[in-house]
């Protein structure tokens, strides 16, 4: 779950990480007022979850408050990568002398946190945060001890960071560590951290990805769910406690399975058989409550879905229990599309006999279910 820039900057301010003078605005008039307040050229930045928005017209400089108003009204009237621009961040424009990218993440290879510093502006923060490059300068952090000053000094020395600004840099990194651990972030990045002509050290922009697993102790994460989960269906599933992904494709097939790997494998199968997948549901293999009925209800009422492939491996929740729930959702549905089911594992026989002549189509294999669903959508699109 990635935060938007203005949310990141609010957290940075709270943790004493220096950011440019600026504010977030929801209208062009507000932008004008903020620009007047700042009293010098400003940078206007669209608040959208898009990687590399600068290259897509999402970051523009305005010399005056009037220009700021014009630019922001243009920006907010359009879409970038399909996302409407509801908010813009208005920051003072700075004369930059040096820039560094600083990333605090958990290294999947060592499984420990790592502080990384690099200067290649072409490299994406997301790439750095998800796989540490041998070329990057980094220090591995013991999660039980935490980031130490000597590690920051070593990093700064290797990166050639100006020694005169070392104490400022050290404090920024320590604050980053506090933020990283206290909000349960997957990564926190300063992108970039700049040294201005006047030797100010400022995080010009930042990125934070939160860990959804930490929802139980970070209640503020739930406040962001509204924008993170793009569709109504996803939000409803999120609230009920199962995984739902909506890719928004029209005239498509939905896949419902238990377990992430099985769901993904089912999706691959459908796409490679020539189908279009728009919705993925994982009802989970070891969940306390089985949500397959709620999941099927959501899928059946979605107009873009023309067929559903259900692939269940019965274990703690048996195929029979899932078949009963699917059947109740089927019987209550106002809109029905063909549902092709493949059961394996515990309770397969019981499930198959339960669904016989129910209208839900029991298939002899996943292959059979997938091919039937693909044929169904082909037929409907003519």
């Amino acid at each position, binding site marked *: 779950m990635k935060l938007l820039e203005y949310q990141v900057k609010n957290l940075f301010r709270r943790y004493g990480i220096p950011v440019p003078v600026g504010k977030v605005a929801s209208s062009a008039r507000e932008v004008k007022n903020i620009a007047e307040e700042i009293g010098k050229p400003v940078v206007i930045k669209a608040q959208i979850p898009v990687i590399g928005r600068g290259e897509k017209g999402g970051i523009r400089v305005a010399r005056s408050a009037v220009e700021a108003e014009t630019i922001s009204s243009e920006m907010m009237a359009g879409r970038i990568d399909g996302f409407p621009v509801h908010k813009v961040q208005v920051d003072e424009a700075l004369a930059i002398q040096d820039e560094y990218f600083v990333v605090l993440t958990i290294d999947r290879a060592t499984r420990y946190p790592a502080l990384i510093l690099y200067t290649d502006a072409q490299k994406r923060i997301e790439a750095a945060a998800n796989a540490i490059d041998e070329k990057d300068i980094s220090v591995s952090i013991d999660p039980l001890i935490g980031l130490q000053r000597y590690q920051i000094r070593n990093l700064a020395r290797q990166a050639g960071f100006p020694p005169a600004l070392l104490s400022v840099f050290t404090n920024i990194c320590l604050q980053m560590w506090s933020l990283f651990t206290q909000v349960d972030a997957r990564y926190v990045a300063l992108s970039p951290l700049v040294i201005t002509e006047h030797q100010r050290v400022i995080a010009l922009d930042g990125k934070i990805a939160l860990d959804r697993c930490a929802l139980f102790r970070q209640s503020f994460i739930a406040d962001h769910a509204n924008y993170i989960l793009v569709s109504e269906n996803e939000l409803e599933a999120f609230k009920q406690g199962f*995984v739902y992904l909506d890719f928004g494709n029209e005239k498509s097939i939905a896949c419902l399975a238990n377990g992430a*790997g099985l769901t993904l494998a089912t*999706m691959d199968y459908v796409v490679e058989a020539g189908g279009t997948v728009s919705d993925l549901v994982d009802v989970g293999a070891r969940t306390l409550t089985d949500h397959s009925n709620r999941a099927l209800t959501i899928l059946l009422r979605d107009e873009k879905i023309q067929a559903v492939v259900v692939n269940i491996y019965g274990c703690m929740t048996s195929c029979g229990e899932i078949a009963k729930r699917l059947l109740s959702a089927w019987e209550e549905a106002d809109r029905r599309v063909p549902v092709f089911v493949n059961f394996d594992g515990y309770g397969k026989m019981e499930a198959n006999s339960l669904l016989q002549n129910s209208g839900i189509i029991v298939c002899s294999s996943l292959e059979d279910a997938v091919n039937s669903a693909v044929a169904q959508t082909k037929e409907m699109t003519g």
Partner: protein
Amino acid sequence: MSILINREMDIIVQGITGRAGEYYARLMYEFGMNIVAGVSPTADGTWVMDGKVPVFDSVETALEIFPTAKASIVFVPAPQALDALYEAADAGSFSLVVCVTKGIPIHDVSKVCRTFDARGTRFIGPNSPGIFNPGSALLGVYPADCAIPGDVGVVSRSGTLSYAVLETLKNAGIGVSSCIGIGGDTLQGTTVADALSLLDADVYTKKIVLIGGVGGQEEERAASQVMFSMSTPVVAYFAGRQFPKGRTFGLSGAFIDGGIGDVARKETVFQQMGVRTVRQLRDLPRVLESYS
């Protein structure tokens, strides 16, 4: 007989009074495993599974009565999992800890990995279906009838998908020596590379199936090891080839961010290293048979 576990091993189940804990403890017991005790902070002094297994309020008290327990399997819910895993590490007597719980915060997993690393305890998971040596031993949540004994080792990042794979192999008459489910979260106590090494060193394992998936670079990191330091042939399958960039699959480690985690890339790396991959699971039996 095969890796990590055997039928003589004494096992403690942490979180045995929860629905999943009790259900799977029973399956392991019925399979013939020695489930000697359970731990639940709120159910001390009770008995579960028709009065066959005593429950203690801590691992320490369980070990006082059953000092021979060498393995623990953890079903404790995610909010309390850090505590339970620290407790397992602190007990000092386990050589193996399996964590079935999914959705543990990444910072907690990192700390737990550090703790187990320092103590030299083998930690498998989190979000792991455990270890299954068909016909011999089970420490986990595998359905016991999904596989037959044989000489194929399986390493998997996912649960139900690995059951489906085991069943595909069974239907083709191919038996399995050991199946290790390393877990589908972002971090794993035992990595793909670790699990492959364990199977490579096992005399009963002649071929290995790796079931990987979208997200991270765990498989890529293991690819050169497969090529240069392993003698057992490996065939890999990756789930999520069609998964779009920029999305995350629930709480799992299945996501592509900044171009990292793409299945096409994993396949390319494997092919460059000369390791076989299959695009469809139904092709697995044929490729495995071609290895003998």
